[in-house]
């Protein structure tokens, strides 16, 4: 057992650091939150820079233009870019981390050639059309219907929580092609061009205000059969293969960021005034923060364990599910503690009240989704109990 990186890993890190240092200082200021056209431009520009420097598709196979990096290089990449506060993957999220890996695993050679290079170069943006208003935790109950009509599917239905739909070129779309089959057995995976007639996009405002999420309404949208990935009615299986690409690194950026924020809270608490002294004088604040940091540190160690396991076996094991659950709760506790520390400086999103307060407040609202999105904590616990511990479903 060894927490030291190999010389090769350290060389990779050094090279990356130096590239980040020089590249980040040239970067323009990030665009306004609500300026979607600019955000697309900014994020895809960053993706293009990654691509040109050889950092795009780090974990993708070389045959599709990736770097075929090891899991530990992937860990280092995420760690260093987050530490350096490099731009977030942003609008490239679905393309690089979800649709792309799915295409690599399941799409035809023609499809891979058509779509993968432009994802890596930041030329094309993808969104996800999985969830529906009545299909959340129970995704397999989705109802959006696709009916075959010659060389096309005619799609009708409604999707929700489609990130960046307003700027996407393509959508990875799950549709029901066999309404008679058992629910998992009648689902098909389609590539939907977002400029197809019949698509209506309605942005979703979240608790934090305007957001990257949207509802997508599909009315008689025609999708070529050639845009189907895998077999008809085999879409459910295809959705299950995607996550193997994470190789244990799914929460690396989040953990690097959360540990930084925990430290910033310790800094800010010393500046948060109380009747006497500062919030840092409150022993209950310090103890709670110590507990949260111990958990975040443990999750960071557990991440390295998962990455090591992926390195050895190709699969990160059950630790990834546990990290999702425990990270969500630790991060929300950090958010709750932030509010306690901020006290009345939390009454507005403003740096004027206490410098650094607005970032913590934004975080607090955004992290409310952690125990819900991509599997509620309730569902995660079920899965751990059933798949890891072997407890019976019924």
């Amino acid at each position, binding site marked *: 057992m060894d927490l030291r990186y190999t010389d090769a890993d350290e060389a990779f890190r050094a090279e990356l650091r130096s590239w980040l240092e020089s590249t980040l200082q040239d970067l323009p200021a990030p665009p306004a939150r609500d300026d979607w056209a600019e955000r697309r431009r900014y994020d895809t520009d960053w993706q293009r820079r990654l691509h040109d420097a050889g950092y795009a598709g780090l974990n993708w196979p070389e045959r599709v233009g990736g770097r075929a990096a090891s899991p530990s290089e992937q860990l280092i990449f995420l760690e260093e870019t987050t530490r350096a506060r490099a731009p977030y993957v942003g609008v490239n999220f679905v393309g690089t981390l979800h649709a792309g890996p799915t295409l690599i695993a399941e799409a035809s050679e023609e499809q891979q050639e058509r779509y993968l290079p432009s994802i890596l170069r930041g030329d094309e943006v993808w969104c996800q059309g999985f*969830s529906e208003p*009545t*299909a*959340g*935790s*129970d995704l397999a*109950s989705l109802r959006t219907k696709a009916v075959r009509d010659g060389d096309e599917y005619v799609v009708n239905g409604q999707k*929700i*929580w489609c990130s960046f739909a307003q700027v996407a070129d393509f959508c990875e779309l799950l549709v029901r092609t066999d309404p008679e089959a058992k629910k998992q057995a009648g689902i098909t995976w389609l590539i939907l061009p977002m400029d197809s007639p019949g698509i209506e996009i309605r942005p*979703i*405002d*979240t*608790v934090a*205000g305007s957001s990257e999420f949207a509802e997508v309404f599909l009315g008689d949208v025609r999708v070529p059969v050639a845009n189907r990935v895998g077999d008809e009615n085999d879409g459910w299986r295809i959705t299950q293969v995607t996550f193997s690409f994470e190789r244990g690194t799914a929460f690396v950026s989040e953990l690097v960021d959360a540990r930084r924020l925990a430290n910033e809270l310790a800094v800010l608490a010393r500046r*948060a*005034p*109380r*009747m006497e002294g500062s919030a840092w004088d*409150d022993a*209950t604040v310090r103890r709670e923060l110590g507990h949260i940091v111990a958990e975040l540190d443990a999750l960071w160690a557990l991440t390295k364990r998962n990455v090591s396991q992926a390195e050895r076996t190709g699969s990160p094991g059950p630790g990834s599910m546990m990290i999702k659950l425990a990270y969500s709760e630790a991060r929300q506790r950090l958010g709750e503690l932030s*509010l*306690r520390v901020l*006290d*009345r*400086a*939390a*009454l*507005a*999103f*403003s740096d*004027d*009240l*206490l410098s650094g307060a607005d970032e913590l*407040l934004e975080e607090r609202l955004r992290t*409310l*989704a952690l*125990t*819900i*999105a991509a599997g*509620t*904590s*309730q569902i995660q*616990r079920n899965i751990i109990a059933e798949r890891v511990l072997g407890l019976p479903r019924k």
Partner: protein
Amino acid sequence: MDFELSADQEALRDGIAELLAGRFGIERVRACENLPGAVDRERWRELGEAGVFALRLPEADGGLDLGLVDAAVVFEELGAALVPGPLVWSEVCAGVVGGAADGSTVVGGVSAQVGDRVVIEHLGGIDALARVGSERVARLEPGDVTAEPLARPLDPLTPVSLVEALPEGDPLALAPARARRDGAVLCAAYLVGMARAMAASGVVYALEREQFDRPIGSFQSIKHLLADAAVRVEMARASVHAAALHVDDPELGDVRRAVAGSKHLAGEAAIANARTALQVHGGMGFTWEVDVHLYLKRAWVLDTVFGSADEHADAVAACLSSFPLA
């Protein structure tokens, strides 16, 4: 001993609930975001006419000569409806600021200053500002306060301003300790109403939302979240009613302990129940469209006034005897 609501109190509760259902439905409440200080002055007067601020005043002053517990019954309903504005300050000052009792004057307030930056809620919608200091409560004119409205308040229905300097103002015939104490209880009552509304909203959604071919309310994990939410409401309400009775009749026991416990539990209940409602609502709970976030944000805001849950827990502990009880 009869710790249930009296028939009069039930009538009071039902009357205010009916008024609020008609005049402060959630759409109207949300619309207050666009009013100055988020105060609907017209309907504020209706609240005043209904007696919301005057319950505890002597009959000679147009009041009903009722107790703090009756006011708490009313404030629970105001909280359930999430009525915006400085309701608590206006009630507490009703006897000493002209026009507050009938709702023609809207009174806001600010408590002891911590640090060098003072934030005031609803400044654009009030006629008088009560400033509670260590020695006295003073009346300030909002126009005399130099303040800058902050662009994005945490709670869209609680606009806040950053104050440069606060003038001294004129003393009011109201003891600071009393303002803090009554304010804490009424604020706690309001929070109980919020906690109740959130528990109820979670139940409604759990009954109607289906996943895996059954209502999500049939799953144990959801049941347990909602059972805990219901327990928090009952405990916090009992605590608030007990605190209100202690204020009006100090011979019942330790008033400080009762008041501190009530604000502590009500604050925690409102926050926890809004969190529960958000989790039960799943993705929908995370949207602006569903009301849950408005309750959660308000609960956070109200934890910063009249003492936080933390401070009140400390206050309860400080009330414990340092000698074994007889």
